[in-house]
């Protein structure tokens, strides 16, 4: 996927979000660190463009909720970054945003983390890329692109805000 394709995917996802939720009323975006955060900001811009409304946007670091943290006491702990959700998620429809949906374990951790912030009315999942190979019963509500992969391959998402360019690359 190149920059053009990524931006058209996000624009389409914004339309789908509006259609499915019948507007932006009570919506909020939460991006999963690292690359879900700029993606959430871009979707917020699209929604603003379409509805002239600012959708509250937050950032979630799921490190403290990972299921592989304490399984083997080997090697360094992952670096923790800040979670910033400056609004109440109670009774909101939360759009959880991540770059790549793979095993589903990150999303499981993010769901646990979100529930600790309150009781949203619903949580919907946005993924720029769905590469398959789920290990948990989790699916995305909005997908930029489905990319069939083998488990040996890796999907690299690079975004302007963090990596200096927009692209999705399939490696291996």
């Amino acid at each position, binding site marked *: 996927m190149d920059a053009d394709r990524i931006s058209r995917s996000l624009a389409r996802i914004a339309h789908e979000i509006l259609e499915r939720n019948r507007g932006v009323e009570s919506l909020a975006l939460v991006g999963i660190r690292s690359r879900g955060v700029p993606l959430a900001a871009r979707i917020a811009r699209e929604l603003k463009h379409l509805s002239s409304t600012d959708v509250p946007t937050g950032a979630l670091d799921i490190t403290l909720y990972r299921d592989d943290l304490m399984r083997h006491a*080997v090697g360094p702990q992952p670096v*923790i970054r800040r979670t910033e959700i400056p609004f109440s998620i109670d009774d909101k429809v939360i759009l959880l945003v991540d770059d790549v949906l793979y095993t589903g374990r990150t999303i499981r951790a993010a769901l646990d983390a979100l529930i600790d*912030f309150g009781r949203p009315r619903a949580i919907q999942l946005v993924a720029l890329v769905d590469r398959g190979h789920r290990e948990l019963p989790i699916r995305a509500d909005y997908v930029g692109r489905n990319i069939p992969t083998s488990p040996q391959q890796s999907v690299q998402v690079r975004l302007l805000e963090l990596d200096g360019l927009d692209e999705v690359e399939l490696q291996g």
Partner: protein
Amino acid sequence: MSTVTALRSRHLLGIAGLEPDEIDLVLDTALAMKEVATRPIKKVPTLRGRTIINLFFEASTRTRMSFELAEKRLSADTLGMTVSGSSVSKGETLADTARTLEAMAPDMIVMRHAASGAPHQLARICRSSIINAGDGMHEHPTQALLDAFTMREHKGRLKGLRVAIVGDLVHSRVLRSNVQLLTKVGAQVVACGPPTLIPPGLDALGVRVTSSMDAAVDGADVVMMLRVQHERMHGLFFPSVREYFRLFGLTPARLARAAPEAIVMHPGPMNRGVEIDSDVADGPWSVILDQVANGVAVRMAVLYLLAGGEERADATVV
């Protein structure tokens, strides 16, 4: 952001064993941990299934409660042991106590002891990670880390900061840990106290030493007051509390000599009217309660970072 992603040792025995990049890592991690306290549910599942023993051979309220809260916020299982009512008062040696606790397979032991170096001895015996919560007149690393975190929070940096540390220097492990940390990260430290309460060799640690409080506070960005530790004074170190307050107490008039927007710190518990005036302790420049709040976040960071580390089975003894 810090340049390392892990601490090099599986113990935190003192600031002496930490490199500047490790200090940055703890402070950056603490920043993320601090956010947990703002949530409706102030608890994360990170240390679920880990056992932490709090071994306090010396009276402690705030440090112990701060560690316990940090442990609980990370979902660890914790148990505490105090001196009174334990086998220690029945004559057991530290080594035997350690081996007994070790047999219960804890993952970490948080220890405070009146003897300098006691946690180091524990680290040689135990396979668990040892965290020093204050050993005698030696070190109190998590206090220095939370002090640094608080300074960075209010001043935006540590390098080049002018820090005056005033009071009972000789009995203070807070001083020793703070001096090591602050000199490692490039802050300028002035230590001030009555000549009878200045430990020999302090100036060799890269600290300016003075007995003039005015000179110490002059232009300081941070004024850190230390408690007069009456319980450790087995002799006459100064003539009277009134005279001590007159010469070394922090008053609004004296604080006026410090840099604009200077902050006042105190590790607690405070002796109002001995080392600090109530108007200063309760004034807008005081960050003393921020220190308490930050203590929990910094201890969560230390517990988290030490929970990783090497494979326990073949871990080397330091």
